């Protein structure tokens, strides 16, 4: 049975409509994976010598034990953000003569082969082998330790599923957990109660008495069973339907009426953003990334390279514009045939999208005013960047949108979500960010800081003047690409 399920998975991967199209993305992800593998492997191999070098009198294995808890928590955190829940479309199997337990086990076992479980092994195994080779402890103890740590990371794997199931719908419920972790961290920091050391000494016991390695194994089995039970309870069609009984939100956004004939489109877009998870999250992310400047403005090392502040300025005032704009019109992919056959002139459609992005830039640049604390030059530069965004980058993003062919599932979280991402999204980021930085760098280097600002400012203003004709031109491109867009959007899958 497992074999058959595996062959189905295999087919679903290779027969997915967009496999060929997203090959570039897959290769990129492959490189990224290779990069992490290399780093982890180097760290795993180098760990023993490094500890010997800097802490010669410590026993490396016992030393590492003290940091295992921190590592596990970090692992849980990045898994929570990045790892997706293992899924299997159960609907076709529900009425077939297959035991539920078997399907659930398949899903759960499948998740063991996740890349996230593979990475820690790259540290545990080389480090363990080093210890075996150096004869730091009895062989059996070290092997028991390796087993214990492997099962601890696997336990994190399953603990993450439980946490994710419970909290993704309701992020507020996470607050007590975070408070607890911060409290433990503070207790540790002020030497009141050393959780890390306590956990470390618990792990040290495994070295003393190797049979204790059975505890992490039991923990793993327990979590596995818990997941099994969780999933078994959800093995009904109405389990997924139940969540949808929420009352519909009927905000009208009547204030958009002021904007005349693009008002219905603006209302439409606001509802789109407000009622769907993925676009809604981009709003939260925009506010969060406003703080991006804090990484750069206070540091002296960046003061001599003001061109970098152009990048920061374009980024923080344009983050919503970029996140939203790069997927125009894929946001409307599900009903693109309606958009194309209804009485919707493309020009108005695009003008409304441009207006929405313009608002976002204005709001973000206003929210960014506190950065004036780091100097007026930064304050003015941010305004210039905002105007550049409005004048140049918005039409640019709209133009790039005409190359979008991939539909977007509005209800999925945007974290590590590459659905709808194609070469367009990567290519457009170059003119978006690099061009203004380059211009500014040239002017700043050969003329002055002010001249660079004035140049970007005039480009932005020029762009605003020609927006109408730019949109005219872009709508022609959309019209030309209409059929291939419609065809692309009709295909499902990522």
């Amino acid at each position, binding site marked *: 049975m497992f074999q058959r399920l595996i062959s189905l998975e295999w087919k679903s991967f290779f027969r997915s409509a967009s496999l060929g199209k997203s090959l570039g993305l897959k290769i990129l992800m492959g490189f990224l994976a290779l990069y992490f593998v290399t780093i982890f492997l180097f760290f795993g191999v180098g760990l023993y010598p490094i500890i010997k070098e800097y802490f010669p009198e410590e026993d490396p294995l016992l030393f590492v034990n003290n940091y295992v808890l921190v590592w596990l928590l970090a692992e849980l955190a990045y898994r929570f953000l990045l790892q997706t829940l293992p899924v299997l479309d159960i609907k076709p199997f529900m009425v077939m003569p297959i035991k539920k337990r078997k399907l659930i086990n398949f899903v759960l076992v499948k998740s063991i082969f996740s890349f996230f479980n593979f990475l820690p092994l790259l540290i545990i195994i080389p480090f363990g082998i080093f210890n075996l080779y150096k004869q730091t402890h009895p062989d059996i103890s070290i092997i028991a330790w390796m087993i214990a740590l492997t099962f601890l990371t696997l336990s994190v794997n399953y603990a993450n599923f439980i946490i994710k199931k419970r909290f993704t719908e309701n992020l507020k419920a996470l607050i007590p957990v975070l408070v607890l972790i911060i409290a433990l961290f503070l207790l540790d920091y002020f030497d009141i109660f050393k959780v890390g050391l306590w956990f470390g000494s618990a792990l040290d016991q495994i070295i003393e008495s190797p049979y204790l390695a059975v505890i992490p194994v039991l923990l793993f089995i327990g979590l596995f069973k818990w997941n099994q039970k969780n999933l078994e309870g959800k093995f009904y069609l109405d389990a997924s339907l139940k969540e949808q009984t929420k009352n519909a939100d009927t905000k009208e956004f009547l204030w958009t009426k002021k904007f005349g004939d693009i008002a*219905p489109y603006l209302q*439409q877009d606001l509802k789109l953003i407000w*009622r769907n998870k993925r676009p809604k999250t981009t709003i939260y992310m925009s506010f969060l990334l406003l703080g991006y400047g804090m990484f750069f403005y206070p540091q002296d090392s960046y003061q001599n390279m003001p061109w970098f502040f152009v990048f920061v300025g374009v980024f923080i005032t344009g983050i919503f514009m970029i996140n939203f704009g790069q997927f125009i019109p894929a946001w409307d992919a599900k009903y693109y045939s*309606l958009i*194309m056959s209804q*009485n919707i002139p493309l020009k108005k459609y695009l003008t409304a999208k441009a207006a929405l992005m313009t608002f976002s830039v204005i709001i973000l640049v206003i929210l960014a005013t506190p950065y004036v604390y780091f100097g007026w030059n930064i304050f003015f530069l941010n305004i210039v960047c905002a105007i550049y965004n409005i004048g140049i980058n918005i039409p640019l993003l709209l133009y790039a949108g005409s190359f979008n062919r991939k539909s977007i599932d509005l209800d999925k979280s945007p974290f590590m979500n590459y659905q709808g991402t194609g070469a367009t999204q990567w290519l457009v980021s170059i003119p978006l960010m690099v061009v203004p930085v380059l211009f500014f760098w040239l002017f700043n280097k050969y003329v002055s800081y002010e001249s660079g600002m004035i140049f970007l400012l005039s480009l932005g203003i020029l762009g605003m003047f020609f927006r109408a004709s730019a949109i005219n031109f872009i709508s022609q491109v959309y019209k030309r690409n209409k059929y291939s867009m419609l065809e692309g959007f009709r295909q499902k899958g990522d």
Partner: protein
Amino acid sequence: MITATNLTKVYKGSTVLNIDHLDIPEGQSFGLVGNNGAGKTTFFSLLLDLIQPTTGNIFNNEITVNQSEEWKPFTSSFIDESFLIGYLTPEEYFYFIGELRQQNKADVDVLLEKFEEFFNGEILNKRKYLRDFSKGNQKKVGIVAALIGNPKVVILDEPFANLDPTTQIRLKKTIKELTATRDTTILISSHDLIHITEVCERIVLLNHGLVEKDLITSAATLQELEAYFSKDEFVEQS
């Protein structure tokens, strides 16, 4: 009202639609029948300029549909769920379509009132998004939305499928009323031969992309169609 000339659509070497000449006069209720893959949806998609013809043209009120967008203000359609916006409530969807067709809220409300019976109390004021409605109820919304703003051409792809019997009967009544005044040209496709012979004054039968029959509906039409579809050729295939 609608004229197709020399119209063909070829997908990867196989011709899915090939219509020499088809003329649909204004105010006609036009029915399209044929087995799966006969080219019904392809024809409607071409008419709405959602796909490009391989050769030939379609004119909607003398406007070439793939060259100008001027046909959009007087043409409305419901082909499938991709014509619905899932995250809107039915009311919002109707008002949105209304705004696109220069109808204010009051105009739309007047129209919706007429369809109260059709909705059977399952659509309005439910505080539910369209994506959470059943297929049949979604279809009701799509059909009614296609009638907003007094369109001169209405295109409905398989409007009877997924509807409950009561609604099917009400839909037939609606279509008949619509064509009674001879202002609206209505194009529908269906697998239900009884329904379509009842509401359409003309029926075109497509088979593998070709116009096989072009009939003015009479008492004998239903029998003729049934005889055609129960031919051995089809029995063997299925």
